């Protein structure tokens, strides 16, 4: 089961464009954007225990940086996207250095304030960002959906590989120790602020990368990207998919993004439905709906295999 499931996922992801075109392929493209955001946020919240409300803001920084560099700097899209990730990492470093000595609600509140300041700044700085109208951005290969999809898939895989490597590295072990008991870790030599900062900068960079990708597949970036509702959506996706599982959070993102399309008739009430879904998940499956479903599926497979005639 442990090998079959990821293999099936990879196969499904690779074959997706052959079965779904136009509208649903576009939904898949946006789903990959959220998958990168949700998995990187779940790394921060689930593995490190840091609740940041600035993840959508970092995506916005990546998106605007990449867009402006292509429009005004004449940079190629891949280079501009990399620069967007770098910009988000640098801002993450600044915000992190200021806030990561704080614990619990203080970090959440500070990052929330930062997000709002950024949204107001983007809206007000009309000459640079076109304010709330939004900035038109050149598309990847003139918006070829197949290329956009596989680019997103490659970035998503890159995110998972790098974050998984980080989790299983020396740094990852120390991060888990900090999450388990911060004072215990600090009194055994772990520089908790430095390691929190590493995690914050790395995940901010991936949020920035996702933002750059979004800008060049949608063709428009606006302050809507960094509004608090977007952050709520990322949070809902991560909790639904499982905070402690990068892949679970990513699948949660794709699932809820797809669900969003079906719930369009409910307009803004969709967020209320997502909120209810998060409450339901936290109450009945705090490790996430998808990890729980996976566990049941695994048990079912084991039983089924043990009953099968040999």
């Amino acid at each position, binding site marked *: 089961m442990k090998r079959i499931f990821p293999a099936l996922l990879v196969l499904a992801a690779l074959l997706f464009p052959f079965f779904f075109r136009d509208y649903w392929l576009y939904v898949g493209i946006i789903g990959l954007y959220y998958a990168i955001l949700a998995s990187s946020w779940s790394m921060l919240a689930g593995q490190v225990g840091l609740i940041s409300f600035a993840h959508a803001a970092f995506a916005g920084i990546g998106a605007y940086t990449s867009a402006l560099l292509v429009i005004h700097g004449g940079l190629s899209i891949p280079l501009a996207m990399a620069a967007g990730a770098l910009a988000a990492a640098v801002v993450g470093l600044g915000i992190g250095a200021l806030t990561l000595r704080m614990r619990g609600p203080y970090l959440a509140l500070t990052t929330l304030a930062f997000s709002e300041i950024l949204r107001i700044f983007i809206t007000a700085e009309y000459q640079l960002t076109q304010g709330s109208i939004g900035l038109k951005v050149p598309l990847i290969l003139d918006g070829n959906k197949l290329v956009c999809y596989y680019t997103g898939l490659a970035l998503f895989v890159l995110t998972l590989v790098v974050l998984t490597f980080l989790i299983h590295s020396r740094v990852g072990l*120390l991060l888990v120790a900090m999450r388990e008991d911060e004072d215990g870790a*600090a009194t*055994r030599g772990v*520089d908790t602020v430095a390691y929190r900062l590493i995690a914050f900068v790395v995940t901010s960079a991936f949020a920035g990368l996702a933002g750059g990708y979004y800008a060049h597949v949608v063709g428009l970036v606006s302050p809507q990207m960094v509004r608090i509702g977007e952050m709520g959506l990322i949070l809902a996706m991560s909790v639904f998919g499982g905070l402690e599982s990068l892949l679970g959070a990513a699948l949660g993102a794709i699932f809820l993004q797809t669900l969003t399309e079906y719930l369009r008739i409910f307009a803004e009430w969709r967020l209320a439905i997502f909120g209810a879904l998060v409450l339901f998940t936290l109450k009945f499956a705090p490790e996430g709906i998808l990890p729980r479903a996976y566990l049941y599926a695994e048990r079912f497979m084991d039983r089924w295999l043990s009953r099968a005639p040999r």
Partner: protein
Amino acid sequence: MMLTVDQVTKNFGGLQALSSVSVSFRRGEFVGLIGPNGSGKTTLINCITGLYRPDGGAIRLGEETISHLPPHRIYRRGIGRTFQISKVFNRLSVLDNLRIPALTEGRLRRHEVQDRSREILEQIKLEHHGKTNAENLSGGQRKLLELGMIMMTDPRFLLLDEPFGGVHPELKSQLEDYLCRLNREGKTIVLVSHEMPSVFRICERLVVLDHGVLVTDGSPEAVRSDERVINAYLGGSYDEA
């Protein structure tokens, strides 16, 4: 090398947890830090290890003032501690728990960390539990693991907060022997404990706190008969207790 607490004061709102406490711990000493509940023993250890910043006074390691340093830097200067309620990393294996202090040190290579972990596992009698998650250990085993964790980097000073609490009598005797051995090897041990028989048996010097004030500092024999200790802590003579 001497660890000196010089006129340290710590307040929590209107409560003075430590009031101008001065005490020194010399190399190779085995000191018992005793006092009734709420007397400031754990607060003093928290101040020494950087979890609390003193409101007044200074803590020095040799000539260096360490009271402004964060906990990880104090640990790296050779001051290890355990907690009253064991702070082990529950969802990590015993071996991973042991690896963490060694990884932060950065001096040890991978195979050296492995060798050291095995050595420590044997010393703390957890050699068959290397892959067990810490949450599945008994209370006593968790105490031993915590001690093993700080021993990974061979600190000079060990500040042990209630290491015998909840430990099986047989295991307690082993733990006492282990601490005595570490002390003979040159470690300075500061032992906070309510287990008076153990404290009087293994400590060569006792420091007594009461309501954040240092009441007395001397040999177990002198402390045993000190009227102030009897009044403040034992409520009668130790023999009667």
